[in-house]
């Protein structure tokens, strides 16, 4: 293995055939038909973390499933020091619209780390998919490489800080295509831009059906009362997820309805701010035994699943969001969702049809009160949400879109 990059060993997930029970034989048959045209092609995926966050979760499932369909797929993770990840976190926030607070050194650190990783890597696969801005400069390796290169951007680029985007833009233009999670994130680029929604895996520990006894045991373990309404937000402890705003909304709801709040999440290895934010959240929750702050390790998929299933209302009050797959996870579990109208969330939550979209802390509190007071409407939203995810946001859809993308790059379109 190289010194800079680390290859990720992905445990064997369910095979592609097992998804027929969820999406039907015809959908799996269609996947196999298109995959036949790509038999033997090799795909290389590169991102910046193996655990934590939606991208790592998607790759954990997508990589073996592409292999199952006949495309050998390897996944490698960019290595960088504390300084590099502080820089990329700063870029991340700035690309999401926050003011850029870096300096010229940041650009040098970014390029140097990409260059260090590039030196230890080979890029001889037919398709190279680079995820997000952190490894974007690896495209400098393509001079000698024969493959097609895709930049898969998972973050909300609708209002990027210009200084950072202007730095990244020339790298992006060297790719064969860019892929975004929403048309709103697309940019003025000279390369083709495609729309691919991130998706959830219905057979993963995070989303599969659970026995009610297990769900109750998880609530008991965390001291959560199953008899009273449970409001839950699942997300990393990150300011862009606005956990403090969620606590404020909960306090507004509590004036009217007795309920509990669960903030469940963890950190990602490429996010140096997590601990600071967690401390802020703990301070804001102090003195209220009905606020449960659960800092869970990255392998807590079954616990997260149980907490979502036990929830009365699921919240995703992000200030900025790439796509926000925790919303799809909750919808899949037929939960009424109150979520901010940012990033890819409006793709998942169609207001008043598959959930409630909000724009403020007050709006969040109001819609939670509405759903807690109108359980039949909440139930209907949850049912619609489940169907919406089934038709658009499962991993089999993602696989199919990847196959079409690779075919397009191969010259079919």
């Amino acid at each position, binding site marked *: 293995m190289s010194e800079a990059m680390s290859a990720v060993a992905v445990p064997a997930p369910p095979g592609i055939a097992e998804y027929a029970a969820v999406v039907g*034989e*015809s959908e799996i048959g*269609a996947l196999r038909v*298109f995959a036949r045209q790509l038999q033997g092609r090799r795909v290389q995926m590169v991102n910046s973390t193996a655990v934590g966050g939606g991208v790592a979760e998607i790759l954990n499932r997508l990589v073996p499933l592409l292999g199952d369909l006949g495309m050998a797929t390897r996944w490698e993770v960019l290595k960088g020091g504390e300084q590099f990840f502080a820089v990329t976190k700063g870029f991340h926030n700035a690309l999401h619209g926050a003011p850029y607070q870096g300096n010229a050194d940041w650009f040098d650190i970014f390029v140097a780390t990409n260059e260090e990783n590039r030196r230890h890597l080979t890029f001889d696969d037919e398709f190279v998919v680079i995820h997000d801005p952190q490894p974007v400069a690896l495209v400098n390796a393509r001079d000698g490489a024969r493959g097609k290169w895709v930049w898969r951007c998972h973050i909300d680029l609708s209002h990027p800080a210009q200084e950072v985007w202007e730095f990244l833009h020339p790298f992006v233009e060297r790719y064969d295509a860019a892929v*975004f999670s929403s048309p709103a994130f697309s940019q003025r680029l000279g390369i083709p831009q495609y729309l691919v929604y991130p998706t959830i895996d219905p057979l993963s520990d995070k989303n599969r059906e659970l026995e009610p006894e297990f769900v109750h045991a998880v609530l008991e373990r965390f001291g959560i009362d199953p008899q009273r309404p449970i409001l839950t937000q699942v997300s990393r402890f990150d300011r862009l997820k606005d956990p403090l705003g969620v606590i404020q909304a909960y306090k507004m709801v509590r004036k009217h309805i007795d309920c509990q709040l669960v903030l469940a999440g963890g950190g990602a290895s490429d996010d140096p701010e997590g601990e600071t934010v967690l401390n802020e959240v703990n301070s804001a929750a102090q003195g209220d035994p009905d606020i449960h702050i659960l800092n869970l390790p990255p392998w807590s998929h079954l616990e997260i699943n149980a907490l979502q299933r036990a929830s009365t209302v699921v919240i995703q009050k992000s200030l900025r969001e790439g796509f926000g797959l925790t919303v799809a996870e909750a919808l899949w579990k037929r939960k009424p969702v109150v979520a901010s109208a940012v990033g890819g969330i409006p793709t998942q939550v169609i207001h008043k049809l598959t959930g409630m979209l909000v724009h403020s802390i007050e709006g969040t509190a109001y819609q939670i009160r509405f759903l807690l007071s109108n359980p039949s409407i909440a139930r209907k939203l949850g049912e*619609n949400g489940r169907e*919406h995810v089934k038709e658009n946001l499962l991993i089999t859809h993602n696989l199919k879109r990847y196959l*079409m993308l690779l075919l397009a790059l191969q010259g079919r*379109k």
Partner: protein
Amino acid sequence: MKSGREPFRFVTASYLIRICGHRAVNLREFAAALRVCPDASIFHHTFQSLERHHYASFSNDFAQWVLASCNEPALAERLAAIDIRDCTSIAVLRNSLEGAVQAYLERHPVSPDHAVSQPFYFCESLEFTEQRNEEARTLAELAEGIGRISLQTLHHHFINSRLRLHLETNDFSHWIRNSLEQPELAGKLDRIDIYMNTLDGLRQEILRTLESWVRR
């Protein structure tokens, strides 16, 4: 049971969405973009989006955006009500859409620059097809095949086919009319309202219609 002169050949279809680059932040820009966006984009937003709109008020992207983001319900209703069966080409459909927007803007001079909550992003679908080793020679075999195909393949044969067949019909009706020589049944399938059904609902309605003829 009568066999067709030629077999019906099923394909497997799938789609990839390309973001075109045109966007509109108010109705004036929307009208301008409607004039210049690719034909594939007009088709995508009026037909391709069907599968995503089970819960929305209107079944085409243009009408839905005008309602949800521009808050102009009267124009949204006009756009949703354009009868695609009156349109024999994308050019005619484009003119109808553009005409509805222009007429509305002339009557409502305040609306064109009214800020919208979300811009409209023009996209188009790239269609990929693969021939299947599956043919139907009779109505019963056609129904059996329709019951097995994926929803995107159904979309290809029943909805996207309108573009290939100049918006007048669909693959199933085309085969029934020309190869099975049963124009009445072909017409019945043509009249199924694609805007008022989910794709799965469409499949059920097609099968109900075919099966009533198979039993004759």
